[in-house]
């Protein structure tokens, strides 16, 4: 069902935890669907580089593995690079997910954008993120 990479990231998730003085925090998902993901970003205000990133996830194996993988993929990257990260790229980096689990990877992409939106609000920078885009954010 799951690839070795998914199982690896599930078993040894990278960057679990909280960041005390995070530049941006995003939480997405809901209890009804059984998946909630929270992402913390530490961003260098002058270079726009994501210097640190952590997550917490309540969700299935795929949800935890995609959370973990996404943090690895954006750590040390610029905000622009992070903004272009798609759920498909995360899933590909894990050598794929079962079709029924693709929606779990959406969660990671969503959480990241939510955290960046929070940073946009806090920093006053315009990252081109729009609150409304989140309201009707849909799976696939």
């Amino acid at each position, binding site marked *: 069902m799951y690839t070795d990479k998914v*199982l690896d990231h*599930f*078993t040894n*998730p990278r960057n*679990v*935890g*909280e960041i005390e003085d995070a530049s941006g925090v995003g*939480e997405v998902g*809901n*209890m*009804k*669907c*059984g*998946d*909630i*993901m*929270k992402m913390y970003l530490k961003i260098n205000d002058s270079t726009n580089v994501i210097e640190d990133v952590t*997550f*917490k*996830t*309540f*969700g*299935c*194996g795929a*949800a*935890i593995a995609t959370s973990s993988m996404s943090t690895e993929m954006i750590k040390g990257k610029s905000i622009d690079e992070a903004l272009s990260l798609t759920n498909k790229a995360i899933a590909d980096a894990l050598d794929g997910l079962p079709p*029924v689990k693709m929606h*779990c990877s959406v969660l990671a992409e969503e959480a990241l954008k939510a955290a960046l939106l929070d940073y946009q609000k806090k920093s006053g920078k315009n990252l081109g993120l729009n609150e409304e885009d989140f309201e009707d954010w849909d799976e696939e």
Partner: protein
Amino acid sequence: MRSIYLDHAATTPVREEVIEAMVKVLRENFGNPSSIHQFGRPVRKMMEEAREKVAKAINADPREIIFVGSGTEADNIAILGGARANKKKGNHLITTSVEHHAVLDAFKALEKEGFEVTYLPVDEVGRISVEDFKNALRDDTIFVSVMHANNEVGTIMPVEEIGAICREKKILFHTDAVQSVGKIPVDVTKINCDFLALSGHKLYGPKGIGVLYMRRGVRTQPLYFGGGQERKLRPGTENIANIIGLSVAIELAVAEMEQESARLSKLRDKLIDGVLANIEETRLNGPREGRLPHNVNVSIEYIEGEALLLTCDMKGMAASSGSACTSGSLDPSHVLMAMGLTHTTAHGSLRLSLGKSTTEDDIDYIIRELQPIAERLRAMSPVWERFQKGLPIA
């Protein structure tokens, strides 16, 4: 590494006596029981002996035993067939909200055909009340289905009371005994049922064989058509190897039941107590009393079930969960939700179903290993974080 199978409610290993009996059939008795020649006749005889064994196990008459392809099929012939064949008598059906999908989805199909169905609610341990049942009865109620014991939380239902009322009111009564046969006494004359379903692979027999008990004189109709096998209710060449395998399995299961169930009940209680004591914010799902001897179901709050399962599996503990995320569907177990659990609690449910191979040492291991697993998953759970910070949990 350790490898403990804790999913006996999902399926059981096939016991050696059963395998040997099946292999003998596969090698020596391949004939078609409908053939009147020397290859067919002995097979017919074996099949009828198997029917007698199965009948004896549930105190039925051999003529009341119909071999079918699975527990699901038995449930469906009883329900779809029983309701459709008696449509003229009335349009109302009753079942419970915590049945297996083989029952529930059959009723959903009947609703689409125009039947009205009452789904009885359950209390917080998953049990229906006889009072609710009585209140649900109508003049046009023709068919009732209440499972003997629940597959997720092990709750035993008051089927004798329901059966007595149905018999008195001449309403057809089906019980899904897939989880109970071989675990607790099952006697069709005491349950007063008209139909009963059981399945081979839950009692150390093969997969792909089920039994429909149908009381003499009761009418149903088949789901599909063909040869005249199994009184036309289950046409198609009979699966003799599985029929023999099931008959061996059920005979042994019933013979060993008293002793094995006492042993399992003790292990079950030790496991429940150990987990609840060892892991904070954990609750038992289903009742303390009136529970299948091999069923443990706990919710470890603020953890998601599939993640829990996968981690358990890595530590050699194979269990199951009522979380949506394991099933691919979005809602968590309909049984847990019907019992009034919140989504959070339902998602964190873990079913550990014990069996013949389970030892006391296994139980100790589970109690010991589950705690750090819960801790680790909680450490990465934003919901646990909310809980600890005293924040509201959606």
